[in-house]
């Protein structure tokens, strides 16, 4: 399955949007945190997990999804949220902890929930798997369209929740896909040190479902493989497991010294940055001109700037609102 030209441009646009988002957040994150770095300070306090480098996975998957489809994302959710169409202003406002944020500042960057596009995430590794299977079941029971995709990291594939959800989805044959972002690291622990198999695609056989591994952090190949799995799911043929090779260009979270990385790894990865790579490819393949891409990039920059402006200018929540929205 090959993406159309429009889809390619959509993918590039959303990769760039995501990257600009992360770049800006990375910059703003340090406001108020210098000279002494204290995570509690600044306009964006708390932990911050950036997704630079992993954009191809998000767009390769979400190019197949509509608003009605369900995504549960991880603690590293920005690229996934952007690709799924989460409202950028509200998302940024949430990251800033503003009253206009997705949850009015209650969640923060690890807890982005947008019911309008059926997007959720969590701070607990593997926690999104069950809910995605349940949403898929809900669609099946209601006879409504929609597939559910749970994104997890390769480290999460060793969590019990993974096994239980895969088995349940397979037994109930619901329209569910688990997409594993294999960035080779779970914080400082390498995949090799944590996972008994080199690739998680083989684990599909444990559930009698297709397993795929997609190499190269390549948006088109991801699009291709995921497309088949989604078609299968939409046709009522049940779940699939897809692991995608990717890499993170940043630390696990901001402030990570990354001393655990072998020497040279980081530089080698920067050479393989998927965004300039896709840019050249679009031009080489004749899918877009420099001008078109410049314009996409400029718009993305503006869109992110606008979201940041919206977030900055939004009001803080009232402190006492902490006590509301506990129950429906």
């Amino acid at each position, binding site marked *: 399955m090959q993406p159309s030209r429009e889809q390619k441009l959509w993918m590039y646009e959303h990769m760039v949007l995501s990257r600009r988002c992360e770049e800006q957040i990375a910059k703003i994150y340090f406001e108020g945190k210098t000279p002494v770095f204290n995570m509690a300070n600044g306009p964006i306090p708390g932990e911050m997990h950036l997704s630079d480098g992993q954009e191809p996975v998000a767009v390769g998957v979400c190019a197949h999804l509509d608003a009605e489809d*369900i995504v549960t994302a991880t603690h590293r959710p920005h690229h996934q949220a952007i690709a799924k169409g989460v409202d950028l202003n509200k998302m940024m406002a949430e990251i800033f902890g503003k009253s206009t944020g997705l*949850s009015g500042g209650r969640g923060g960057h690890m807890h982005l929930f947008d019911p309008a596009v059926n997007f959720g995430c969590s701070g607990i590794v593997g*926690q999104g798997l069950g*809910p*995605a299977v349940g*949403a898929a079941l*809900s669609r099946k029971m209601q006879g409504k369209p929609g597939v559910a995709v749970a994104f997890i990291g390769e480290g999460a594939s060793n969590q019990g929740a993974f096994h*239980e959800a895969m088995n349940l989805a397979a037994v109930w044959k619901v329209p569910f896909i688990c997409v594993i972002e294999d960035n080779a690291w779970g914080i400082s622990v390498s995949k090799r040190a944590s996972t008994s198999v080199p690739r998680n695609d083989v684990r599909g056989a444990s559930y009698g479902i297709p397993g795929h591994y997609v190499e190269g952090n390549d948006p088109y190949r991801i699009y291709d493989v995921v497309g088949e799995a989604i078609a299968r799911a939409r046709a009522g043929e049940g779940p699939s497991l897809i692991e995608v090779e990717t890499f993170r260009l940043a630390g696990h979270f901001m402030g990570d010294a990354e001393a655990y990385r072998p020497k040279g790894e980081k530089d080698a990865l920067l050479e393989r940055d998927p965004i300039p790579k896709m840019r050249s490819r679009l031009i080489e393949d004749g899918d877009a001109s420099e001008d078109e891409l410049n314009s996409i990039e400029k718009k993305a920059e503006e869109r992110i700037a606008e979201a940041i402006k919206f977030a900055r200018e939004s009001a803080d929540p009232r402190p006492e609102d902490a006590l509301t929205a*506990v129950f*429906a």
Partner: protein
Amino acid sequence: MTESNDRKLTIARAMAESVAQEMRADERVFVMGEDIGALGGVYGNTRGLLEEFGDERIRDTPISETAFIGAAVGAAQDGMRPVVELMFVDFFGVCFDAIYNLMAKNIYFYGGSLKVPMVLMTSTGGGYSDGGQHSQCLYGTFAHLPGMKVVAPSNAYDAKGLMTAAIRDDSPVVFMYHKRLQGMGWLGTEAGATVKTPEESYTVEIGKAAVVREGADVTIVSLGLGVHHALKAAEQLSQEGTDAEVIDLRSLVPLDRETIRKSVAKTGRLIVVDEDYHSYGVSGEVIASVVEHDVSVLKASPARVAYPDVPIPFERGMEQFCLPNVEKILAAYQEMKSA
């Protein structure tokens, strides 16, 4: 012919009846759990449902509590209204993330923009020698953590009304039923739990305690099976001329502190009866809720009759030694009076 309002039900049947009525009225309601289909639930509370509703809506699950409780959350967020069973509350350790961190917090993380209408029903309690991993109450464990309502009925009337209220609630409700109140003969049911229960659908408000016996001399607060111990103790006390008021909490979250405080303000004496572990649980909370409000109402130091801080032993004599009972309540009152 028995009038409808004379009909007595066990808690098990009352729960099943409520679920069935709600399933008839609302096709989004469905049930998931281990052995809730053909078996009808180990504690009988889903009996008859598979036959009426079929296996799409009455779903036996694999032994995968994390997955199926997580799935219930996902389904609830997507517009369904799942009733999901954790067979024994003791098993919460394998799936508590899906409960306390996911089910209980997602409304908050959505900023209130989404509902999580689901019921988690789970069996509690010991006294029949089922050992340390099948006999706990864990009321305090669930009630301590924010975002989930927690109810625990002592009789069939309340069980049906609370279950109906729970299913209709747009927030997650944990429904803790005590095994020895279920009306399963093989567990030696407390007779007082099987009471008149209307056939028609009704709700009991979540968050309201019931004064199940009025009295002026001492307030005995309890929940679940403990309410029956308290009522029996009150009967005995009345023969000695002491007039005990008994409060059935029914709901731990929200906790009806008003009703407790009002009663203790009247009686000046407080005994809390709780089958859950003694420390850091329900008994401490009830006592603190009274004294932080107004310590001067107390004429004597309050007392608790709770499960000691030890794992639950298998052997009958040891287990009974640990469990709350009528004698311990009476002894607590004696000590209170003579102090």
